[in-house]
C-alpha cells in the first residue's frame, strides 16, 4: 500500500513505515514544515511506530530538516518505537557527521539493511 502526499511517499512494509522524499532538495522551510507535520501525524497514529526514512535521491539537506529528524526520532522513542535512516549519499552523510548526529540516529547503508531485524508482521 502506498500513500502519496505532495512531499513524501510512505509505503507500509509489514508494519514498518518507509518514507521517501519526492524532492531532491530538502531545504525550503515551508516544505520541511509540511513534511514534519505529516510525519508527526503518522508517528502519533501508530502504537509503537517503526519508521524508516530513506534518503534515496536526496541531494541537499538543511539544518531545518535535521531538526525535523530529531523531533521524529524523539517522538518515535517516546512512543516505544524506533526510527532508522538509510540510503544517505556521502555528501549528506558529511552533514550528519559534522553535526555528530550520526551518533544520535540509527543509520544504515541501504533500506534492505535497515529493514533487517526491524521486525514487523
Amino acid at each position, binding site marked *: 500500500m502506498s500513500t502519496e502526499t505532495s512531499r513524501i511517499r510512505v509505503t507500509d512494509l509489514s508494519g514498518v513505515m518507509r518514507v521517501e522524499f519526492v524532492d531532491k532538495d530538502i*531545504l*525550503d522551510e515551508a516544505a520541511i514544515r509540511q513534511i514534519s507535520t505529516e510525519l508527526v501525524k503518522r508517528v502519533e497514529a501508530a502504537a509503537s511506530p517503526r519508521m524508516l526514512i530513506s534518503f534515496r535521491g536526496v541531494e541537499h539537506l538543511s539544518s531545518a530538516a535535521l*531538526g*525535523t529528524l*530529531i523531533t521524529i526520532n524523539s517522538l518515535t522513542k517516546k512512543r516505544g518505537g524506533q526510527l532508522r535512516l538509510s540510503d544517505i549519499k556521502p555528501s549528506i552523510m558529511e552533514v550528519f557527521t*559534522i*553535526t555528530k548526529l550520526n551518533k544520535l540516529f540509527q543509520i544504515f547503508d541501504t533500506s534492505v539493511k535497515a529493514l533487517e531485524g526491524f521486525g514487523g508482521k
Partner: protein
Amino acid sequence: MAENDIGGAGQMTSEPQSAFEGTVRLHEKNQEIEGVQVSIAEILDRLHYSEAAIFAVRLSLEEAMMNGFRHGNLQDPTKFVEVRWLIDSNSANFHVIDEGDGFDPEGVPDPTLDENLEIPSGRGLMLIRAYMSDARYHAPGNHLEMTFRKVAK
C-alpha cells in the same frame, strides 16, 4: 546598519567571464531564495568549482539566509535579508545582512555536545563554519561575511 564596510568590490566586473558580483534583497519567499541559490550555483559551475564546493556554498547560503529571516528578522514579513556576492575563479565571498539587532555568535550553545544532540535547532551556524573557508559576523551581529576559497580551506 553595518553597510559601509563592503565598498570597493565593484571594480572587478570589467572582465565578465572571470568575476561575478551581485546584490539582492529578499523577503521570506521561498521561490526567491531558491532562485538566488540556483543562480549562484550556476556561476560557480561556470567558474569550474567542484560539485563539493557548490554543495558547501549552497548549504551555507541557505543556512545564512534562514538564520537572517528567523533569528535576525524574527520572521517579520516586511523585513528583508540582503545577500551580496563577489565570485571569481579563486574564491566566492558573500555578505548576508538582516534587519535585526544582531547577536553574539559565541553565545550559541555547541549543538554537538551529547546533552545538546536532541535539541532540534542551532546547527546552521556550525554547518556554515564547517563548510566555508572563513565565516565571521560583523558587529552588532546582523551581518555575516563568509568566503569559500578553492585551494586552501
